[in-house]
């Protein structure tokens, strides 16, 4: 009766062309779309223009793997583990072009993208951002007595990669935790690809329908990817893998070390080989539990 939107992880990324504007969902160490990111690296993507929600390893790994020509930066950080290592290295060498956007810049830009408006007015907060990203910020006229305003340019990704906890075959996607910018990114993007830890029935979707942050009309492809956010958190299913994040940071000290990491965990590893490399006992230990909280 209905056509399923479920595809394999490799099928999902196959049609993302080099040079595409690729948005990434999640928030720092939550719901980074890692299975999709690894597939994109395996595919050998080049010259991407990234538009990441505040993130960590998803943009950092794509940058470190040489897939990225430029990135928007709202916030890219490894928090308690320090600065984002590959982002930092490529930005400091000048090889990576960075467009710094603040909250109003990304929120207003996505909303303009969603609304098919060329720009959105935001308050002029007197920052240095417009000086370094004049493509994104320009002054708007205001009348005497009105606050000073900037226009922020519409942000319209060609494709977005998101990770959520569950979806049905129609593409109704549920977040079992905060959705962060995912819904706005999906609405602003031309093509929406979502990996989920599990596929559920539409009856399960209906039962908690307030969790359907992306109704099927906004989703093009669903990828079943258990532990697909690893090593970051998939809210209510598993916590971030701090040991692996530390290993990642250590492996990112230089280009050569990082290439070794990529060979082991990404380039020569399918999704299931990746999970085997991480190991069953490690994954099992990430299951959600108060005792996992230090």
């Amino acid at each position: 009766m209905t056509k399923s939107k479920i595809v394999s992880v490799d099928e999902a990324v196959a049609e993302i062309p080099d040079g595409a504007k690729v948005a990434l969902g999640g928030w720092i160490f939550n719901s980074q779309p890692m299975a999709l990111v690894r597939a994109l690296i395996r595919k050998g993507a080049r010259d991407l223009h990234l538009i990441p929600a505040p993130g960590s390893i998803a943009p950092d790994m794509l940058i470190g793997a040489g897939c990225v020509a430029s990135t928007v930066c709202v916030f890219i950080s490894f928090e308690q583990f320090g600065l984002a290592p590959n982002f930092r290295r490529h930005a400091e060498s000048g090889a990576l072009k960075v467009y710094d956007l603040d909250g109003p810049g990304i929120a207003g830009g996505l909303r303009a993208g969603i609304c098919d408006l060329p720009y959105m007015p935001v308050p002029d907060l007197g920052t240095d951002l417009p000086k370094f990203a004049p493509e994104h910020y320009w002054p708007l006229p205001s009348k005497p007595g009105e606050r000073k305003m900037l226009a922020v340019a519409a942000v319209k990704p060609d494709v977005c990669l998101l990770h959520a906890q569950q979806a049905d075959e129609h593409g109704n996607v549920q977040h079992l935790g905060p959705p962060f910018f995912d819904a706005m990114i999906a609405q602003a993007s031309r093509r929406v690809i979502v990996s989920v830890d599990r596929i559920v029935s539409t009856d399960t979707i209906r039962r908690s329908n307030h969790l359907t942050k992306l109704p099927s009309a906004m989703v093009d492809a669903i990828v079943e990817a258990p532990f697909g956010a690893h090593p970051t958190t998939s809210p209510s299913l598993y916590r971030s893998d701090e040991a692996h994040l530390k290993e990642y940071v250590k492996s990112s000290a230089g280009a050569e070390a990082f290439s070794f990491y990529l060979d082991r965990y990404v380039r020569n590893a399918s999704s299931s080989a990746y999970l085997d490399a991480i190991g069953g006992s490690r994954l099992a230990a990430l299951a959600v539990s108060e005792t996992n909280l230090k």
Partner: protein
Amino acid sequence: MAAHPSLGETLAVLLARDIADGEKVIIGTNSDIQLAACNLARRLQAPRLWWISGPGGMVNPTRDHLLSTADYENVESAESWMDLPVMIDFIDWKVHFFDFAILSALQVDRFGNINTVVVGDQRKPRVRGPGTVGISALCGLAKRFYVCLTRHDRSAFVPRVDFLCGPGHMEGGDSRERMGLPPGGPRLVLSPLGVFDFAPDSKAMRVKSISPGVSLEQIRDATAFDIVVEGTPPVTTMPTDHELELLRKHVDRRGDLRRKFP
């Protein structure tokens, strides 16, 4: 008597004391000191303090330990759970919705402007920082803000930030208002060496109080601009036993502040 407070505990207590009842605040993702300050204030003079998780939208969760505000476990005990697309209007646009925010930075300058973007030139930086996210809007639109740094040296306390992403008093004097920003700006800067405020007219940073055992000379040496000193600044009043007990028993039960900010 309680064990000696760690740096993180002291900063949380000093901030908590400055919070008034009924105020509204937003807390970011990785904000142990901020969260501890707010939850401690709720135990003391500000039971009706209202806080919302910046990324996750949970309001007033009741945890007895420090948990990233983005963590889904905050959902269970929250009074409300808002989605970011619903929240962006009052986070990114609205004037004075929040009474205050507490921010960290790579650099803070003489007029309380902050920088979390780059040290050096944005196009080829010496240090590439994490970026701006909510900082510009909170500095620009909240009624006041605090800058809380766990280090105090000449690379952090600079004459002028290399990249202004959080507007403080801009060029000093009334330049913030002339720029068209609503009344506000930085109220206090806290560091391991002391507490700093801003002189009323010039809006230049000045010493408000000095940490026990620290000298004015130490502060001057660690600050890359002429910091205002009026008379002899008092010694900062350290956390009381009562404050520390509340903090350790009801706010930071797992001792994260002691571990992370010793």
